[in-house]
């Protein structure tokens, strides 16, 4: 009876092992950073841990040299399931030797960040430093910061990115309510003007690493071209009102003046640093 049972058990094990012979074996989860390709710096790994404490979504970053013919997105999805990551998690996979990347979002995280937004973040923040400059730290930093900002915007909460991935350390006294107001405004103007000045800014920033680019664009960055455009719009508004025989700036004028003032403040802040 025991022999029969052992034989049956062996046969069952064999069938199971044959069935899973072709199944993918995933590495063990070693926390938020699984840098198997050894391309990320210790500082980036530390910043990812810090970011996880501040962001609405959690991040896990995986780097591999190759995937042996497997599709990156398929591998990333499989890894997300195998590691049983939570619904608020974002898993970023970078395949260094294949120059491919993929991300998988949990159900809660995907409510904050749509597929279109994720693709946009990939193309605007990750693709260039990852493939062209091979600045893996910069690529990961820029992607994570933008994704965390997007999640914060979606939830209406504040996100403090200061000190992470090379961004400027904000003054402790000004990191309260005013900073949250500025962040959303800055992001709005950033979205508004990026399409107009993207080429200029890229030229201006040539030679700098991507983490600095992020700071420049989103946090406390100053753009001369942006200031000139705002002043030009303000001038047109004032002239138009004068022709109509009206005094003052009007709602539109005051709004534009506010934007100009903000740019000027950025300028002084930039100069002080």
């Amino acid at each position: 009876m025991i022999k029969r049972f052992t034989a049956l058990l062996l046969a069952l094990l064999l069938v199971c092992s044959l069935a899973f012979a072709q199944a993918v074996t995933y590495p063990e989860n070693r926390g938020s950073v699984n840098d198997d390709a050894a391309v990320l710096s210790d500082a980036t790994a530390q910043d990812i841990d810090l970011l996880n404490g501040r962001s609405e979504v959690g991040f896990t970053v995986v780097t591999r040299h190759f995937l042996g013919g497997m599709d990156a997105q398929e591998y990333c999805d499989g890894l997300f399931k195998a590691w049983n990551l939570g619904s608020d998690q974002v898993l970023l996979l970078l395949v260094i030797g294949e120059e491919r990347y993929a991300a998988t979002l949990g159900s809660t995280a995907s409510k904050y960040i749509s597929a279109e937004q994720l693709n946009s973040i990939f193309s605007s923040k990750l693709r260039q430093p990852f493939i062209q400059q091979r600045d893996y730290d910069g690529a990961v930093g820029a992607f994570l910061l933008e994704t965390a900002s997007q999640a914060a915007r979606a939830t209406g909460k504040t996100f403090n990115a200061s000190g992470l991935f090379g961004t400027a350390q904000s003054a402790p006294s000004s990191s309260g309510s005013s900073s949250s107001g500025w962040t959303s405004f800055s992001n709005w103007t950033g979205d508004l003007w990026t399409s107009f000045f993207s080429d200029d800014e890229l030229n201006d920033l040539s030679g700098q690493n991507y983490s600095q680019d992020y700071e420049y664009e989103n946090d406390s960055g100053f753009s001369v071209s942006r200031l000139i455009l705002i002043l030009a719009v303000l001038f047109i508004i004032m002239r138009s009102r004068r022709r109509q025989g009206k005094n003052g700036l009007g709602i539109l004028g005051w709004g534009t003046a506010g934007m100009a003032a903000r740019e000027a403040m950025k300028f002084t802040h930039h100069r002080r640093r």
Partner: protein
Amino acid sequence: MSENNAASEEKTFVKEKKSLDPRVALAIMIVMVCCALCIGANKAWKKNRVSVDAAYIAWEDNIQQRVETAYNLLTVAGRYLPAEDAQLASVRGDLKTMEAADMTDRDSAGETFLTDAQALLAKLASNQTVQSDSRDNMYVTLMLPQAVEQCSNSAAKAAYNAAAQSFNDGLHSFSGLLARLTGIDFAPTLTVSALE
């Protein structure tokens, strides 16, 4: 009186109806014994086949390693060589056959892959563009040659061949003959090249 006779005849008739011809009984018994022998042989040889199948899994893992290495090598080579390059095409052909169904074909493609991969790696290593790229130069001179070296281990194949040979030898016995009658086949053996 006549009623008693009729009853005894009926009993005799019933008795005769229940009894079986001894020759038929013997035939049934022989058939049953044969069936028992065949079933027993089938079960026993299926159990013996487990060790061959276990060795097959190890060989399959080794081929899978070669498939993955081929993909990785083709990814790097594809950045520097045109698609019609002869060495690139050879590795691509090996990969295609290694992913095919036939075990013997896969095995021979796996063997050819090792030499084709080394030739392709040598070509890439001598390419100046590769040399100037620190990342890909590391892949071509360090990582991928190591991967090819690791999967060139023929121990899994030798173990499989030994298990298959032992199993096949056993199938020539009487019980093996019965097992073959019930659908147990010889295990395919893989050709061993002179280099191995």
